[in-house]
Every structure is written in structure tokens, then in C-alpha cells.
């Protein structure tokens, strides 16, 4: 039995995604920049994806720029914008719970002399529009807030933030890291006043190594990847036809069944949350209000059990989860998000993230709860004295 509850780290490809990736690798293998038919054929896949994405977001096709994934999109959005508008000002606002693709890029900008304000969050991981507004200064050029937190699922009020910051200072560029939100929410950059938005393919049953940055046509970040001038010179490099084609198919499928998907994931989440609440020594993290939390992420600490040990014990039963966030496993320091919401060291050391997809079933959640009921007492018998 294989129960994959680590969908916030990555997801299994849809068969349709894999099919089109194969098709573009084996038959439509042309370079979209080529003048001949093979080039035109390949280009049609790119155009198709642009059409699908533009339709989902209700934006223009030319506002979609493909990248190598979420990290590149985040890096480009922040660095490209900061550099483009530095004469206007050098102040940037962000939050304490951002993904490292954002926080590391901001750290780099800070080293280059930009002034970065990091806003704290409350116990549930929220930053408020008021907080962001009161941090705005005359020289603020960029605000970056994630939509769904990758570790605890907090749904940040990005629409409200976009609305209010632009009312105060219309020329601020607002970037949203929507890597965890895209495919799970209907996001409308126009009405939410989002100028830049990062998305990754492999979080939505698409291929790894592809993503995109939505760039509002009035915003002009400087390109970071230079070369043959592809994508209007904004992001050079031969188009990743298989990746982009797969991304389009995956996004299309996700949005065609968004409501059913959300309902089934929410049911799984609630079932797990309820089961965990009934166990001794389990602390749930993240928002209590289900409307303000992603339906597919649940983070909990299991008192007295180190997360790595529980992770491997669950693995033994074929259940795959994450300790904190998969992206933090390469570092020794604890999760920045859990630190920001005020978790104790003990809570951080014992935190496990369960994340679901539409493919997750309630039967799997039942099996997981049962496994936890067996494993936890055994592991707690052997704890460091």
C-alpha cells in the first residue's frame, strides 16, 4: 500500500500530463523559434498552454512568462522588479513565513543595499492588510506576500492586501507567491490587484522543471536570464515545450474540477484533523477557521516523538509525509514558518505535515490514523530520557 500524503512537496503527474510530455518529446520535438513547420508545430503547444492559463487567470496570454519553476519565478519577480524600479525607491516589504525562494532572494537584495521589512505573523500565520499598509513608506517599491503557506496552509488575505496597498500607493508592485495556491483557488490577478504571481508546474500534477510568472503588462521587471531573446527577451532559453505543454494540460484539468477537488480534499483534511484531535499529545498548527486555511495541508506536532522518526515509521507502513517542509530538510535549523508562529523547539522537532491531493481518499486517511494509533505509543515508549 502506498499512501502519498506529501502533495505540498510535489504531486504525481496526471496521465494526460505524461502523455503530452511524451508526445512533445518524441514527435513535436521542434524548436518553437525555428521558421519551419516543426517549429510552428512545437510553438502551437506553447500557445495552447498560454491560452489555458490566461483563461484560468482572466489575464492576457502575453502576460504569462514560462520559467524553470517556482523558484526562478520568485527570484525573477523580486530581483527583476527591485532592479527595474530602484530609482523610484529601494524599500521592499514581505513576511516572516515566505518560502526560501522568496526569503533568500530578499536576503540577496538586502546585501545589495535594498531595505527589506519583514512583517511578523500571528499565531495562525496571518499577516494583515493593515500591517502591510502601515509598513509602506515613500520609497516602497515592492510588496511580496505568499497566498498559501507551504507548511501550515494559512491562506493569506492577498486580495485585501493588493487592494489596500494600491489605494495608498498605486505604483507599488505587488508580488504573490501562488505556488501552493494555484490549482486550488480561483485567482484573479486583476481584481485582486496582483502585479506579479509565481506558479510551479509540479505542485499541480504537472511536470517538474516548469512554472511561470504572471507579469501584469504595466510592470517591467528586468530579465535575469539573457540569451537568444525568447519570450520577448524577458526570459531567454529554448522554450521548454514538453514542460509547458504538460503544465497547460495539468492546469486545465485541475481547474475543470476545482470544486469537487476542493470538497474531497477538505473532507480528508477534516477527517484527519478530527482523528488527530482525539489523540493524546497532538498539537495542530495553522488557522482554526477552515475557510482561511488551504484544504489540503495539515500540520501537527506529536509530543515526545521526533518528526524524522515518525516520518520513517510511517514510511514503513507505506505512508509518505513530510517533516516540516520538504524544502527545509537540507538545513539543520528549524522551519521558519513554525518559528514565526511561535512554536516551541519541542513542537518544531516533532512537527509533521500531511498534504493531500484530489487523489487522496478517506480510506487512506483512515489507514493513516490507524497507523498513527499503533506507532505513536510504541515510539513514545522509547524516547530520549
Amino acid at each position, binding site marked *: 500500500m502506498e499512501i502519498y500524503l506529501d502533495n505540498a512537496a510535489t504531486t504525481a503527474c496526471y496521465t494526460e500530463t505524461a502523455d503530452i510530455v511524451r508526445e512533445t518529446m518524441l514527435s513535436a520535438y521542434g524548436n518553437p523559434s525555428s521558421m519551419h513547420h516543426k517549429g510552428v508545430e512545437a510553438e502551437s503547444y506553447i500557445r495552447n498552454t498560454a491560452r489555458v492559463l490566461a483563461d484560468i487567470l482572466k489575464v492576457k496570454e502575453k502576460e504569462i512568462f514560462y520559467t524553470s519553476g517556482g523558484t526562478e519565478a520568485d527570484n525573477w519577480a523580486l530581483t527583476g522588479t527591485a532592479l527595474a524600479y530602484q530609482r523610484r525607491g529601494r524599500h521592499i516589504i514581505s513576511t516572516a513565513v515566505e518560502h526560501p525562494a522568496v526569503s533568500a532572494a530578499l536576503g540577496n537584495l538586502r546585501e545589495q543595499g535594498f531595505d527589506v521589512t519583514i512583517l511578523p505573523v500571528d499565531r495562525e500565520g496571518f499577516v494583515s492588510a493593515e500591517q502591510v499598509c502601515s509598513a509602506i513608506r515613500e520609497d516602497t517599491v515592492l510588496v511580496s506576500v505568499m497566498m498559501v503557506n507551504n507548511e501550515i496552509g494559512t491562506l493569506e488575505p492577498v486580495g485585501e492586501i493588493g487592494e489596500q496597498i494600491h489605494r495608498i500607493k498605486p505604483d507599488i508592485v505587488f508580488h504573490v507567491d501562488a505556488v501552493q495556491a494555484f490549482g486550488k483557488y480561483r485567482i484573479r490577478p486583476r481584481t485582486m490587484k496582483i502585479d506579479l504571481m509565481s506558479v510551479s508546474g509540479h505542485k499541480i500534477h504537472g511536470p517538474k522543471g516548469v512554472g511561470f510568472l504572471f507579469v501584469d503588462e504595466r510592470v517591467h521587471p528586468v530579465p535575469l536570464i539573457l540569451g537568444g531573446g525568447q519570450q520577448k527577451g524577458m526570459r531567454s532559453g529554448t522554450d521548454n515545450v514538453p514542460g509547458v505543454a504538460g503544465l497547460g494540460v495539468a492546469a486545465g484539468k485541475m481547474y475543470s474540477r476545482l470544486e469537487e477537488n476542493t470538497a474531497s480534499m477538505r473532507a480528508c483534511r477534516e477527517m484527519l484533523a478530527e482523528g488527530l484531535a482525539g489523540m493524546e499529545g497532538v498539537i495542530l498548527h495553522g488557522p482554526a477557521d477552515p475557510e482561511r486555511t488551504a484544504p489540503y495541508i495539515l500540520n501537527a506536532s506529536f509530543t515526545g516523538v521526533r518528526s*524524522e*522518526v*515518525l*516520518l*520513517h*515509521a510511517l*514510511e*514503513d507502513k507505506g505512508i509518505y509525509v513530510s517533516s516540516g517542509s520538504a524544502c527545509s530538510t537540507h538545513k*539543520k535549523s528549524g522551519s521558519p514558518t513554525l518559528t514565526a508562529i511561535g512554536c516551541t523547539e519541542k513542537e518544531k522537532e516533532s512537527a509533521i505535515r500531511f498534504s493531500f491531493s484530489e487523489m487522496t481518499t478517506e480510506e487512506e486517511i483512515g489507514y493513516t490514523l490507524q497507523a498513527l494509533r499503533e506507532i505513536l505509543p510504541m515510539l513514545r*515508549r*522509547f524516547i*530520549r*530520557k
Partner: protein
Amino acid sequence: MTKAFLIKYAEIGIKGKNRHYFEDRLVHHIVRSLRDVEGRFEVTKEYGRIYVFPQGDFDYNGVLEALQCVFGISGICPVGVIEDMDFENLKEETVRFMKETYPDETPRTFKVNARRSNRKYPKDSMQLNADLGEAILYACPWLKVNVHEPDILLTVEVRASIYLYAEEIPGPGGMPVGSNGSAMLLLSGGIDSPVAGYMVSKRGVQLDAVYFHAPPYTSERAKQKVVDLAKQVSKYSGQIRLHIVNFTDIQLEIYEKCPHEELTIIMRRYMMRIAEMFAERDGSKGLITGESIGQVASQTIDSLVCTNAVCTLPVFRPLIGFDKQDIVTLAEKIGTYETSILPFEDCCTIFVAKHPVTHPILEIIERSEKKLGDKIEEMVQEAVSGAETVVVDGV
């Protein structure tokens, strides 16, 4: 002029009648080390010397890197080989060799050290010294002669061909692996044990290793890390059979039955017992650990007495008098440090007591162990028979 390498070895020379055996081992390891280096190589043993002759194009730095991993080599001399015996040609080639070897033209002193073993050659050693010295002086005005303490000692050997060499790049020293039997290394994911394995292997000892893992308390990546470490050590030692033992049940049994402060000592005694079982099976004549006196509670002299007491084979502890920093320096040199510091927990650290005994008394430890009963023997047998063996060969 073609390029070759003269291999110098130190201790083999003093091994009397066994000398041939040691040399053959060394040639075997040189051939092995060059297996994956770009190029084709002929390794020859003549007149008590080992040469590596590249055939056609080859990766020069790759050869040096590979040879620097072969125990028994004390020095590697890049050699210019001249087939044409004409003296005018030799002069030209000698000057070219000096210019190529020392291209920076900084002022230095030199001496020519010619040896004519080919009696048919028209000039004797003294004449060669003088004439070649003159040619070099004339062509390289930045060089001066100093026959007592030269910066550069250019050796010219006249045999069937003529060999020129000036530089000697240090090798790792030691003795060819396999010339001194084999031993079983207790390999953890830490910094010390790979270094200990390296040091014993350097004395010509072939290595096998045993690693204890404790799923789910230690991860698959911790295991991979140890395989990687073994692989890095095997760049020097040659093939290692790594036995991976599942230690969880034994560890939990000790945890439940024995005093917590004694857990680490008792656990280590079981590790030694199991390692010895593998040693006997593989024909190893000793155990190797990375212990260093007083480094941690389980490595005080009293603790070592307790862990040592379960072994009948000798336990080699090459790092016993090393400071941590010395070990780290060596780990960096042999390329294991980077892997060793990856943050995966190993089975020694999971259940450590806050205050483990630092001065255990053997009788007390033995009495505590009695509480484990017969069941533990079954567990040990099971751990040994269920072990997974991975063969690594880092070249």
C-alpha cells in the same frame, strides 16, 4: 619527447626477499587506480623501478590524482622520455623540458644529475652533467648552477632510452593494500571512523566494514551517507564489503532492560561483538574503530576497557591520540569530511542519556548486561544473518 611517470616507493625497498611481492601488489593497485582515468596506460616494473607510460593522449592531472590515492607510492616524478639518443637532440630536449617544467622564469638554482647506465652511450655521467648544464645555462639566463643545494635537481638517466625528471610530487606513502591482511572497520556516519579506516589501510591492510542502522530512528539517507563514505575510503583502500546491520531491536532491548546511563557502553559492546562475528566470517584479523581517548563519554579509558573486553581480536584505534581538529584536517584531505558532516542522525546518538557514565566499571556493566537474558543472543544472530552487504569500489 613523450611523457611518463616514475613511481617512487619507500618502505617496500627494505622488505628483503618479499620485495617482489610488495612491488607486484603496488603495480596491481596502480593499474587499478588508472582504470577510469582518460587514456591508456602501460605500467612496467624494470630495474627495481615502476613506470607508468601513457599511450597516446591522456588526462595528466587525472593520472596524478589517481596515483596520489595509491598506498605505497612515496613520490610521483613526471618524466620526459627521449628515444632519439643523439646528443644534440638531447640538449634541445633537455632545455625544452626545463622550460616546460618551470615556465615562470623566476631565478632559481639547479644541478644536473646524470646517470649513464647504458655503457654504449658516448658521453659519461660527468661529461653529461657539464654539457647539459652548460646548455641549460645558455638557454635559460634566469637559472644558476648550485651543486650543493640546488632548487632544481634535474636527473638524466641514460638507458635504452633517456629519462629526464626534476619534480617529485608526494604520494600518500604507506604500503600497498593487501600486503598486510585485512581488518573490519566499524563505520559510522561520523568524521572519525572513515579516517581510521584510511589510516589502517595505509599500512597495507585491506578493509571490510560494518555499519549499524536503526530504522525508523535513522533514515535511508543516513545509510546512503555511510555507503558514500565507504566509497570514498575505497578510493584508497580498494574494494570494501560493507555489512549493514539492522540494530533497532537490539538497541530497544538494551534501552528497556538496562540502566539508561549505561546504554551507550552496552550498545557499543554489542557492536564490537557483531563486528567480530563479521570479521571471523570474512577472515579479518582485527577490528578498527575511530575512537580517540576522552572525545566522548564512551571513549574514556574506562569506557574503552569495557568495550574492549568483549573482543578477542586486536582492536586498532589509529586516532587514539588525535585531537578532533587533527582528525578533521585529515578527513578534509581524504575527502570524507563533506559527507561526514551531513546532518543525519546515526544510531549512536538517538537514545543517548543526558549524563552517560564516563567511568564505567566492567563488572557492573557485565551485571547490567545479564538482564538482557537469552533473547538478546537470538537478536544478535538475527541481526548478523539479516545483514545486507554492499560492495563498494571508489575508483
